[in-house]
């Protein structure tokens, strides 16, 4: 089986509050998967279900080949989790905290694993200090180390950089990049779009139910097509007209002396556009692609979903 995580109509309600509604996703082994959604979207709830911390109220889920709710011991043994609130025993040293959790995870070489991850995360020199004296960033790193001690196949990271200063965030992001190269399956909950864009192979935009699911690049394209910008010596209505007349062009507009063209497949159609523009006498100085920010994509989906919710309420 290459799917590391499978959910099938996975649902969770708290009373009448439907926190997660019929979520169905497949996450292959080795993928870095982003769960992106506003506060209260159900990201933490989803991760808690997938780590066997709380039981689903509907549907089913499999993690590393084990069924949630049936093989909870095996699931817990095969996953690592950075919980939303990364708690540590403040009165114990960093080393003792990790040693305790390592024994709970039945780690064989406890000192070896502790040293490996404390060194990787730059906390080795401070291992004897009480965790209560650590900064938020250091605690977060320690919690990430804790999630990795038993070398889990699947790693869940709930808002790994939230509340960290930019420098600490960067360190954590770089560390996740390193883990990604090690071939682990990683699920990241975040509302930091930049982070999702840079780290994730695929992103699920999510608000109780799935709104969109694809790679960051495909999400952009799916929504907006792709946008090519022609810098012309003189951009005018004539050029815009001939370009828009092409059946493969979705939209062409003029802005700040540039001709901005939205189309599906620039690699195939750019040569033809360039040819007709030159035929019409345009002087092309530069051709580039306009990259949409993922934020726009995200806001599109989330707003679309709240609009439809509002409409439903009015109906």
């Amino acid at each position, binding site marked *: 089986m290459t799917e590391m995580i499978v959910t099938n109509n996975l649902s969770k309600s*708290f009373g009448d509050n439907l926190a997660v509604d019929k979520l169905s996703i497949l996450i292959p082994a080795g993928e870095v998967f982003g769960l992106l959604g506003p506060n209260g979207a159900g990201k933490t709830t989803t991760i*808690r279900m997938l*780590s*066997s*911390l*709380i*039981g689903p109220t509907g549907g089913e889920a499999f993690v590393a080949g084990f069924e949630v709710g049936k093989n909870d*011991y*095996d699931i*817990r*043994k095969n*996953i690592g*989790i950075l*919980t939303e*609130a*990364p*708690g*540590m*025993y*403040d*009165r*114990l040293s960093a080393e*003792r905290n990790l040693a*305790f*959790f390592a*024994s*709970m*995870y*039945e780690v064989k070489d406890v000192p070896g694993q502790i040293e490996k991850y404390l060194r990787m995360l730059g906390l080795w020199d401070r291992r004897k200090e009480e965790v209560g004296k650590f900064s938020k960033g250091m605690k977060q790193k320690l*919690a990430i180390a*804790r999630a990795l001690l038993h070398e889990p196949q699947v790693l869940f990271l709930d808002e790994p950089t939230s509340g960290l200063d930019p420098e600490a965030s960067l360190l954590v992001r770089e560390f996740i990049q390193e883990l990604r190269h090690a071939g682990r399956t990683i699920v990241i909950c975040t509302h930091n779009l930049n982070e999702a864009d840079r780290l994730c192979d695929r992103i699920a935009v999510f608000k109780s139910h799935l709104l969109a699911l694809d790679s960051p690049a495909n999400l952009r394209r799916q929504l907006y097509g792709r946008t090519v910008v022609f810098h012309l010596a003189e951009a005018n209505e004539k050029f815009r007209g001939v370009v828009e007349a092409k059946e493969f062009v979705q939209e062409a507009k003029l802005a700040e002396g540039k001709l901005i063209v939205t189309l599906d497949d620039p690699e195939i159609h750019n040569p033809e556009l360039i040819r007709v523009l030159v035929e019409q006498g345009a002087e092309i100085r530069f051709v580039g692609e306009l990259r949409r920010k993922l934020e726009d994509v995200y806001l599109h989906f989330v707003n679309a979903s709240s609009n439809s919710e509002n409409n439903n309420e009015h109906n």
Partner: protein
Amino acid sequence: MNTTKIWEIMKKEWGEVFKNKIVLFAVAFMPILFTVLPLYILYSTQGGGDIAQAFSAAEEMPSEFAAVCGSLTGSDCTQFFLVSQFIILFLMMPIIIPVTIASYSIVGEKTTRTLEPLLATPLTTLELLAGKAFAAVTPALVVTWLSYIVFMVGTSIIASTAVFLKLLEPVWLLAIFGLGPLLSVAGVSIAVMISSRVNDPRIAEQLSSLVVLPLLALFMGQSFGLVTVNETVIIWIALILLVLDAGMLYFATQLFQRETILTRWK
């Protein structure tokens, strides 16, 4: 049951909880007080202190004295009667200490937010509770028994041999070594049940500490001569506690629902 994990939990609890002043007070100061106080009273009534003289001057001993003393007479009897009251103190230690430790260790897990990462590990609820329970019961019994030994040594020095030998009678041995552990288990089960529902360790501790009330009632009852704590009474209490403990342990594990505890607490 993975005994390594239970042992690791116990060590972790001790590392954490003994750095808490309230817990330290219960585990260290209270036993010292409860041991020194009876010894001081013994000392001050030595060789017939004021109270002893007052009573031996009277023709007849009060009937509750006779019930406790058996063959002892005169100032020995007075001394021993006073000391017997303190058997209750030695029964309070094994209940208050585990209640305090367990309250702080379970609610503490919520306040440090370590409960979720802990429940995410492959640890069974039973292993978790066993670790917490043993971590609370062991120091309680060690401290109680140590205090009892100190008390006996002190008595052998201060009081007469007859009084000292009284402390080795079955009623004391049954109370200290039989009732003590049973009371500890009762304390822990109640602390677990209450801690699962409460978010403030002090509230958990105070509520759970109400379990000493029956003991206090016994103490009062004996002081006023309403009951005599003898072997039969101790054995009856032990039997009742055995049944109660089994029931409470079962309920405590049933009440400790991972999901409820995790989600109800914010």
